[in-house]
């Protein structure tokens, strides 16, 4: 049986018992109420009889009108009470009948006495005689009846009181019996429910303790078929599962132990490999450095000989020397690449980011390849709408190197056609691409393109042989900018047979200048805190920049800001100082700069910019604000520092 059912049964029995007790108490109360009503009536009769006797005496003494009136009132009152009441008990009924009979007689005697008294008034002697007889006859009878009434009413009252006592006793007895019955019912049902619930719970509790101590073979196995029985079965099932799981875990632990040992061995091997790689990088770096200098001297020497400075040389000798010089250039490039890759791997490459217009950067880079491409009959093209600017937060030298590697690679592997360079702004990134019309890359080689020293599938032309490091370096540099690089081949479907083209695409993240600025300040602040140094920022704000932008056009406004930025940059003297633009603001961060020094720099910038605006008659149109704040003098956090610099 379910626990809920047990509890319901217990509640039902308790309820029935309580109803029974309540019913008994109700019936008993009614009985007591009835007895009390009779007792109250008896008391009322007793009081009226006593009062009647008292006013009778008062009347008999002086025959006062007041006493007569009170006698009549009291008689009527007693008559009313006697007419309303009915006694069931034979003794009580007999007494009641006596009282009624005597009451009627008292009235008869009393009225006779009153009449006799009235007749006697005015005839004193006659009255005295007559009253003497009445006293002996009527008054005596009247007083006897009154005494009898009073005595009966006392007895009646006593009996009614006794009846109350009896009812009370009977009621107490029955209430006691039923209350004990209720208590027993509750105790029995409670005990039954408790035993059937608490027993299995105790077994379950014991089982939990045993299993908790580690004995997973223990079974609770309660006989109860209620919710606790179900719980115990579930618990046994859980213990079985736990046992199975524990066994599996033990196996797993052994396996993990083995794997850890293997992993440790691998780690050791990796460390060893890293050491070797580092040794190799150091070796390459050292060798490269050591080779570059003599190579430069050799090239210089060849140049001097080739120019005839060291004496006349024949044409065929020049040819030989030119070939030697070209190979020296090639060797220098190889060495540079080796140096770059070793620096990258050693983590020694320093990225110095700034907000750079990629369009200008690409145009400049493409222009640098013009001669080389034309020499091969190729064209390197880049298409941008006039005045297009695409700003990215990059190290321009490194991105130029990426473009250089990709364009150089494209020229190297393209015999006919052209190379296109594009920069496109996407929603969350800037996408740069270099596409050629060359032979392309075999599908199976695409995954290895960016690995070091990979040279595959491409037909080497004259001078096409490289180090196999260019794409690897490009990937490393792009990733240092939080970007990604990939390759697609074939890149174009409309190319003649034997050519499928290759497209290298790399992405750069788009940065919000405000976020970059905060990152800058936050980074600068962290560094300052580490060093226990100060950090100052100067914010030059352009008032109503939106209006100014409309008036001067987008390009004009930014050109002016760039001009101002360059002027500030030119004014900075410390190596760690930087300046950059956000929308309508020029922010200068002064590394390890005290507040007083920052204020001097601020004044200097102010003077220079004001003079510039005045010279170009812009001082009425453009209003600049100059704020400065220093950590830790003015603020403790980056947000406070920026806020302070903006509000001063």
């Amino acid at each position, binding site marked *: 049986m379910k626990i809920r059912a047990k509890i319901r049964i217990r509640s039902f029995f308790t309820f029935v018992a*309580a*109803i029974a*007790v*309540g019913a008994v*108490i*109700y019936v*008993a*109360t009614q009985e*007591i*109420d009835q*007895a*009390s009503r009779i*007792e*109250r009536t008896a*008391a009322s009769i*007793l*009081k009226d009889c*006593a*009062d009647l*006797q*008292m*006013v009778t*005496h*008062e009347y008999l*003494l*002086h025959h*006062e*009108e*007041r006493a007569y*009136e*009170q006698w009549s*009132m*009291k008689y009527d009152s007693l008559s009313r009470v006697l007419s309303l009441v009915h006694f069931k008990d034979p003794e009580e009924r007999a007494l009641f009948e006596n009282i009624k009979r005597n009451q009627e007689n008292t009235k008869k005697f009393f009225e006779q006495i009153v009449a006799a008294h009235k007749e006697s008034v005015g005839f004193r002697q006659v009255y005295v005689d007559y009253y003497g007889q009445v006293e002996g006859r009527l008054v005596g009878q009247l007083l006897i009846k009154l005494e009898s009434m009073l005595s009966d009413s*006392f007895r009646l*009252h006593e009996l009614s*009181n006794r009846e*109350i006592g009896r009812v*009370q006793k009977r*009621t107490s007895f029955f*209430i006691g019996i039923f*209350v004990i019955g*209720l208590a027993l019912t509750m105790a029995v049902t409670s005990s039954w429910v408790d035993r059937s619930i608490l027993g299995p719970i105790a077994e379950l509790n014991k089982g939990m303790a045993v299993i908790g101590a580690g004995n997973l073979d223990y079974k609770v196995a309660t006989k109860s078929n209620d919710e606790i029985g179900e719980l115990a079965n579930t618990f046994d099932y859980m213990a079985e599962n736990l046992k199975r799981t524990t066994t599996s875990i033990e196996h797993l632990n052994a396996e993990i132990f083995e794997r850890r040992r293997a992993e440790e061995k691998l780690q050791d091997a990796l460390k060893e490999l890293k050491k070797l790689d580092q040794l190799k990088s150091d070796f390459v770096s050292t060798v490269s450095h050591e080779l570059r200098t003599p190579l430069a001297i050799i090239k210089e020497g060849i140049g001097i000989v080739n120019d005839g400075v060291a004496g006349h040389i024949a044409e065929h000798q020049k040819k030989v020397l030119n070939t030697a010089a070209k190979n020296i250039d090639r060797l220098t490039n190889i060495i540079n690449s080796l140096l770059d890759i070793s620096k990258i791997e050693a983590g020694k490459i320093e990225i110095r980011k700034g907000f750079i217009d990629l369009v200008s950067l690409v145009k400049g880079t493409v222009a640098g390849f013009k001669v080389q491409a034309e020499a091969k009959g190729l064209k390197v093209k880049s298409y941008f709408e006039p005045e297009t600017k695409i700003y990215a937060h990059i190290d321009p030298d490194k991105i130029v190197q990426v473009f250089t590697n990709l364009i150089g690679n494209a020229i190297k592997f393209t015999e006919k056609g052209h190379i296109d360079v594009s920069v496109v702004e996407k929603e969350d990134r800037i996408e740069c691409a270099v596409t050629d019309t060359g032979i392309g890359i075999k599908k199976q080689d695409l995954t290895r393109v960016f690995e070091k020293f990979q040279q595959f599938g491409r037909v080497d032309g004259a001078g096409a042989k490289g180090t196999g490091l260019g794409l690897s370096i490009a990937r490393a540099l792009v990733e240092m900018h939080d970007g990604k690089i990939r390759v697609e081949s074939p890149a174009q479907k409309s190319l003649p047979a034997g050519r499928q083209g290759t497209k290298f695409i790399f992405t750069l993240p788009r940065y919000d200048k405000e976020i970059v600025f905060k990152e800058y300040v936050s980074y600068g602040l962290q560094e300052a805190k580490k060093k226990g140094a100060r950090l100052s920022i100067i914010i030059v704000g352009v008032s109503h920049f939106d209006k100014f932008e409309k008036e001067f056009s987008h390009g004009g406004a930014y050109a002016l800001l760039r001009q101002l930025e360059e002027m500030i940059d030119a004014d900075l003297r410390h190596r760690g100082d930087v300046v950059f633009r956000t929308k309508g603001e020029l922010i200068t961060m002064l590394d390890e700069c005290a507040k007083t020094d920052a204020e001097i720099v601020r004044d200097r910038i102010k003077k220079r910019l004001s003079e510039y605006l005045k010279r170009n008659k812009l001082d009425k149109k453009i209003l600049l604000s100059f704020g400065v704040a220093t950590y830790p003098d003015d603020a403790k956090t980056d947000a406070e520092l920026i806020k302070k610099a903006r509000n001063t």
Partner: protein
Amino acid sequence: MLYNLKNVNRVNFTFCMIQITNNKLLITQIKSYSLIVLIFTLLAGCSAKDEEPGRLENVTIALVKLEGTALVRIALNNGYFKKEGLDITLNEYDLDSDTLEAVLNGNADIATAGKTPIVKKSFQRQDFVIVGTIYSSDSGVKIVSRRGRGIETPSDLFGKKIGIPKWSEEHLFLDVLLVNHGLTLSDVKLVYDEPQILIKSMEKGEIDACSLREPYAFQARLKLKDNAVVFSGDGIYSTTINLVTLTEYAEGHPLILKRIYRALLRAEEFIRKNKYASIRIIAEELKLEEKYLEDIFGESSYLLRLEQNLLFTLENEARWMIINNLTEKRRSPNYLKYVYKEGLKEVKPEAVTIIH
């Protein structure tokens, strides 16, 4: 015999009432118990709230300068009348006949008066009622005599020169006292005068004794010092101070009467619980000695009630006046008509024992 019978009946009646109360209590308990067992929620009903006094009602009380008016004085002193919403104006009089006159003439709403002026007026007018008794004492009138005049017991008064205020309570008391000791008024030589003059006469030795009510009996005792011999009537005569008003006023202002009753019942409780504080208040009000009041408080009852024996004693006094030809009427009035019991019955039913 009559008094004894009455007392027996009272005892039985009291017993009956206790039984009824006990039974009621038991029934109530059992009912409550059954409800608890059945776990029924009991919702407490709101008890009927006594009517709240609204604005202050003006009531003028004509008050006699006697310590028997203690209930009124304490109620006034302790602010009980004000708490009941009554603004009391007190007009004080030396004689209780004057206080009654003030009510009958419309100069006061309520008077405090002894039985004698009430009975005298009851032969002339029927438009006033007693609404309560606020004081009663079996030692309110005393015989004070000079030591050395051979007066040690009431029987010794035979042939003595005794001073009394004529047709007063003192006169009636002396009459009853003499009759109770086998004498009549004709067995003594009566000298009629005001109490103060009688005290001086006794001091001078011109009269042998005086029948005096308090506080004159106490004053005489002070004057005679160790020469004073005092005895009271051993309960043969009861003095009372009653509240009297016009029938029209009682029937027209039941609410005011109830408020007065409530204030006086509070004063009654105050006296019961604070005897000495009450004595101090009365002593200060009436310029009486606290020592005297301590004696008086021990012999007197300061309770608000309307008792059956009031009617009987009023009739006794009326009959005495008829016998002594103080009135032309030959029958005593029906004093049930001179009692207004409805108000007090509502406020404190057990205080009304007049048979009705």
